[in-house]
């Protein structure tokens, strides 16, 4: 290896290290500042809680055997609605792609559903599905499904025209064109729809839990507000932030695996 190459590689490493350092630094700074401000009474510990109180609350939850059940319920709801959303979204996108006239007919309805605030459907969902986990999942599904459909369908439409023509000249049938060209071409968009889908599922699940649930992190937040235990509210928010980050990272790992060879 030449010295220039070594220097180049070293520079990449240094830049990467710097970025991680600053990311951790900002996080620590935020928590330390928060703790210090509360400690010296500059901001109210009752309203803003503090990192130490959050940790204490979480430990209490763990000791009362409540922590894992709430996290588990929320995760379960998110994952079920996410998986349902992307698989249904994928299926509907295929149907729309294969039947373009249908897509044109449904276009205004999709646009309308996309911009409709789904939370407005909350009361209706509760009446139909009951005040239970089913309602939460339906809520999250409604929120992530339309986005998945639209994103994946638009991805399909962007298939390279020359590659489509190539498949035509090879006399490929519709199924072959779909499975060997259109879907693989859209890996990038499909992954993007996963990223959107996971975020939307979280939004939907928390919204659902606010409305109906007796379990889950959304419930913890609402309960905390009702009994004016803002440590609980803050703990819920921090937990959500951690969960959404982990879920997002999992999809990024999947993305790297799937898109290794695509330009």
């Amino acid at each position, binding site marked *: 290896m030449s010295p220039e190459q070594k220097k180049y590689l070293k520079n990449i490493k240094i830049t990467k290290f710097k970025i991680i350092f600053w990311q951790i630094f900002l996080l620590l700074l935020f928590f330390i500042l928060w703790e210090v401000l509360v400690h010296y009474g500059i901001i109210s510990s009752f309203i803003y809680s503090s990192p130490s109180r959050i940790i204490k609350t979480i430990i209490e939850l763990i000791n009362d055997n409540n922590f894992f059940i709430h996290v588990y319920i929320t995760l379960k709801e998110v994952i079920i609605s996410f998986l349902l959303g992307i698989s249904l979204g994928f299926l509907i996108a295929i149907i729309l792609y294969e039947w373009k006239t249908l897509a044109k007919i449904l276009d205004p309805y999709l646009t309308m559903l996309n911009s409709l605030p789904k939370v407005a459907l909350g009361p209706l969902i509760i009446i139909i599905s009951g005040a239970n986990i089913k309602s939460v999942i339906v809520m999250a599904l409604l929120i992530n499904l339309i986005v998945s459909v639209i994103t994946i369908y638009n991805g399909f439409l962007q298939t390279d025209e020359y590659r489509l023509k190539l498949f035509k*000249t090879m*006399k490929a049938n519709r199924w072959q064109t779909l499975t060997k060209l259109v879907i693989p071409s859209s890996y990038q968009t499909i992954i993007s729809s996963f990223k959107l889908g996971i975020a939307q599922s979280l939004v939907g699940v928390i919204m659902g839990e606010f409305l109906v649930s007796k379990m889950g992190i959304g419930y913890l937040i609402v309960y905390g507000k009702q009994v004016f235990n803002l440590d609980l509210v803050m703990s819920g928010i921090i937990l959500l932030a951690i969960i959404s980050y982990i879920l997002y990272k999992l999809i990024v790992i999947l993305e790297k695996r799937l898109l290794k060879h*695509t330009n």
Partner: protein
Amino acid sequence: MNNILEIKKITKNYHTKEGEIKALNNINLNIKKDEIISLVGPSGCGKSTLLAIISGLDKDYTGIINKKDNLKMAYMLQSDALLPWLTIYENAILGLKINHALTKENLEYVDYLLNLYKLKEFKDNYPKSLSGGMKQRLALIRTLAMKPDILLLDEPFCALDGQSKLLISEDVYQICKKEKKTVILVTHDIEEAITFSDRVIVLSERPAEIKRIINIAIPNKSSILERRKDKLKEEYFDLIWKDLNNES
């Protein structure tokens, strides 16, 4: 030589909201076995449309095309249209796979072609590792793998830079001669048409009609580079140039 393909009175209209556009008008053409012909004409005149009709991709026309029932045609397009998620080998056999023709004989032929075109050592790599010229060569292998009786080349070199264009067109020329392929080349490059083919068909502006058919009598058939040096080339060039510019 007998005709491998006979095109009689082909007329094609496009239908748009604004009205009917006549694309091709009364095209008559016989193509002999093992001959290389070029279609040249102003851009947008309908060269590619004619190719699509010949290949059977476009069935919306009037006229008659006589050909043997089992005549196989394969396309090479102006974009290499490689699939980046498949390896070079998987790209090469794509057409065979789609047509359920992955026989031992066909696969051996692909190996032979990959070897001949110096792509064998990269066969497990992905297309992004290839240069522009290599990608186009791979696209040619993918086309040849189908063992077509007629090769349809739809401006296959137009996306390449000058040097790769010469090299790859030379490659294609050599293999067409060696494998005795019948070739129809669509191009807007007059020099390419002359050096590549036995006959040049000059089309008029839309609606395209055959304006002139030139038999290219350059005796040297060893290579495109040699044919470029022939004096006759200049004469043909002038002739076609005038044909194409009379109208505009």
